């Protein structure tokens, strides 16, 4: 027997007084942790492959199960933390690059938690969202420098294409392939009912989603998967994906095992082949090249679709955003390094890029310095955990926020961070039919809608407290934010004052 150098991470605890040996957990765990023993009389577990996804826990009819952290102490060492030793062992075994799913779990500063919101008292009344209209409608797209009117005040000329959203929350890119069609369909249905957008990622558009094209953002990424004229035309917005917050500077890799017939059709690649998107777009080596791609996409769609450029939040983000705006992007999405992913090299995910809060603040300030902020839309991405994070992002300067992990959690995701294995027990990050069928879009779209309705309501409540009844007046309103426990430099970059000032 080969030596396993890494202790297991979790213990599966079964309360035998409660367990009725129904076998549900055996069927539910795709990691095959639970099994029948003694000829099917009792159920036992081997926790070595357990990822703490809680599928078995949540479905056990008698609540007999719990997952606990497996305690196995190493000799204390502040430098050689167990994580590094375990990763070394894994690499010594496989010789490969470490892969992870979801956003970085490392305890980097989360600036949302270091910013506090304002509320009105006396000099300026707060507004009750239940009694007064509270507007969160958000309009994305390139805005002309000014309104042209004739002498009577009637507008002249044409407006570039605009997207009217009924919430500042949109769903970020998750491709069919990295997530299941059922998961994507749930998001598409929710986007339609909520009056917002979902994003197909770079996975092409599955024919089953043809009813939702008015709510679809289609991506053009370096692999160009599924990109053809109909794909571009069957969309509300086109997004050129330059980078992703979880893995700046590298491309994508969808393993061949996940490329079944359906995925291969949507992506227009052979079945079973690895879908590799190169690190750069091989036709974009400079900002002029980006400009050309933006204009070709606009030409291919008769200028009817706004074009967004999505970049990862990296050190020079402000200048890059400004370059994208000048290259003709109508919308610029910045993805912070805490953003999620279906699969990313762990080292990159945990060490490359910068937080969205700082990137957004810097980019918004830069566009204002150049006097062009009002002409483009700025989307923030990279981990919004609750409605307050969204309110803070808008106050920093975002037009709208891309959310992915939160709606996935609404559909059952438990942040087990093993999306890259393709064995998602919740039917989200998998293509296995026995798993994907666990996710019923007719139910899940409602859970996602409930979540966004709840967040919308909370956003309105916070706005009302500040005496603001339109999200337009929250956008970039940094006086509504105060830092708590931040250094001068951090406050300066965020463009906010410290609490008490």
């Amino acid at each position, binding site marked *: 027997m080969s030596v396993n150098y890494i202790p297991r991470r979790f213990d599966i605890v079964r309360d035998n007084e409660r367990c009725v040996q129904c076998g549900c957990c055996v069927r539910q765990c795709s990691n095959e942790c639970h099994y029948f023993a003694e000829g099917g009389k009792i159920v036992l577990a081997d926790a070595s492959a357990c990822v703490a996804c809680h599928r078995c826990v949540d479905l056990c009819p008698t609540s007999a199960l719990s997952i606990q952290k497996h305690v196995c102490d190493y000799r204390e060492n502040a430098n050689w933390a167990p994580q590094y030793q375990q990763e070394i062992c894994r690499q010594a075994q496989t010789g490969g690059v470490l892969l992870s799913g979801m956003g970085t779990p490392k305890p980097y500063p989360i600036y949302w938690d270091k910013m506090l919101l304002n509320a009105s008292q006396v000099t300026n009344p707060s507004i009750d969202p239940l009694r007064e209209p509270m*507007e969160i409608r958000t309009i994305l797209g390139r805005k002309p420098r000014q309104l042209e009117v004739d002498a009577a*005040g009637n*507008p002249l000329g044409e*407006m570039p294409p605009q997207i009217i959203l009924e919430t500042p929350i949109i769903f970020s890119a998750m491709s069919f392939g990295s997530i299941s069609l059922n998961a994507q369909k749930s998001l598409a249905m929710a986007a339609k009912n909520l009056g917002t957008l979902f994003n197909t990622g770079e996975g092409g558009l599955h024919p089953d989603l043809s009813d939702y094209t008015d709510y679809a953002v289609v991506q053009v990424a370096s692999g160009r998967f599924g990109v053809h004229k109909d794909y571009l035309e069957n969309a509300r917005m086109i997004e050129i994906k330059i980078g992703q917050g979880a893995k700046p500077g590298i491309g994508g890799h969808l393993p061949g095992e996940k490329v079944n017939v359906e995925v291969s059709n949507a992506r227009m690649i052979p079945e079973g082949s690895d879908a590799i998107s190169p690190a750069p777009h091989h036709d974009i080596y400079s900002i002029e090249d980006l400009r050309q791609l933006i204009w070709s996409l606009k030409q291919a769609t008769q200028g009817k679709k706004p074009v967004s450029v999505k970049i990862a939040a990296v050190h020079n983000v402000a200048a890059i955003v400004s370059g994208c705006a000048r290259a003709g992007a109508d919308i610029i999405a910045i993805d912070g390094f805490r953003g999620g992913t279906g699969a990313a090299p762990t080292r990159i995910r945990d060490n490359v890029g910068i937080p969205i809060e700082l990137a957004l603040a810097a980019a918004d300030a830069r566009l204002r310095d150049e006097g062009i902020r009002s002409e483009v839309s700025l989307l923030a991405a990279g981990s919004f955990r609750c409605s307050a994070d969204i309110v803070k992002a808008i106050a920093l300067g975002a037009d709208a926020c891309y959310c992915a992990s939160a709606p996935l959690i609404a559909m059952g995701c438990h942040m087990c961070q093993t999306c890259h294995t393709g064995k998602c027990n919740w039917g989200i990050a998998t293509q296995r039919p026995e798993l994907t069928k666990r996710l019923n879009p007719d139910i899940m779209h409602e859970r996602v809608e409930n979540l966004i309705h709840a967040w919308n309501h909370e956003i309105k409540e916070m706005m009302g407290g500040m005496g603001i009844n339109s999200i337009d007046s929250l956008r*970039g*309103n*940094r006086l509504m934010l105060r830092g708590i426990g931040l250094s001068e430099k951090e406050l300066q970059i965020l463009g906010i004052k410290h609490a008490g000032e």
Partner: protein
Amino acid sequence: MLREGEVRIPSGCAIAAIIDKKGGMINGAEIIKSIALMHDRSNGLGGGFAAYGIYPEHKDEYAFHIFYDTAAAKEACEEFLFKHFNIDVAERIPTRKIAAISKSPDIWRYFGKPNRVRMKNARLDEGEYVMQCVTKVNASYEGAYIFSSGKNMGCFKAVGYPEDVGEFYMLDTYNAYLWTAHGRFPTNTPGWWGGAHPFSLLDWSIVHNGEISSYDANRRYIEQFGYKCTMQTDTEVITYLFDHLMRHHGLPTKVAADVLTAPEWTEIDRMEPEKREYFTRLRAIYSGALVNGPFSVILGSNKGLLAINDRLKLRSLTAATKGNRAYFASEESAIRIICPEPEKVWSVSGADPVFVPLEIAQEEGE
């Protein structure tokens, strides 16, 4: 303690205005009487007036009203002024010594035209040139503050109750076709004369009651276009918004007012297609210029008088008309005391800005 401009100070207040749309003259005593009635809405920490048509003999020249804290500030500022403008007249603004107003800065006024050569070299039109000069002095000449810079108009303000400020500046010796007045109730006591209202730039003057919650969104919007909000007041940012929309973007007064007080989406969605398109465009393009929170604003200019109120009507503003005159005030009683029998009295609604254009041709344009 930080001075106004170094810190944002919320305040409540009283406002009043009168216009004679045919250009008939109104004595300053009238507007003083109106604003004095609302004494309790101010707390003696700021009062002021703007008057249009008061300098007919200099009507083609810019009239600069300046506060000087020190002789050195005056010397430095004058050097700048004489270099950038051909100044015809430089004089102290006449004031009356009264007990209620103390610690006055040295208050001067200048009449002059831009130095053509410098203006051409700077490749700026006249309005832009004057605005940049005023911004320059106010931002970088310590102890000097230009608080009025229009043609044939002037702003008069001080720390004190408005009626005392009126007496101090001897406004009963001025006649104007348009007056605005302001009494302030700041929740802080900076005691700086420049912080009193109206706020004025070029021909614009603004008096305002309320505290806008969109302040920083509006400030960061307008600062994209070369403005610098040195005062950190609502009035300053609203003035710049109007100046930008009307002077740079050439929007008619009514459209500019629509930008600041755009109707709610629920209302827009119910409109006729053309109106809906107009407001949707306007809100999409000028989302950063939408003003939010409780406010009532009176904007004076050589084009006339505009009164706007917030969308939720959180601050009172009453309007009345009689003959050629229109009256506005935070309280109806402040109108009735100078116009006991108006023909029409109404409350200015958020959705319906009131614009009273001046109907005399020679005042149009710059």
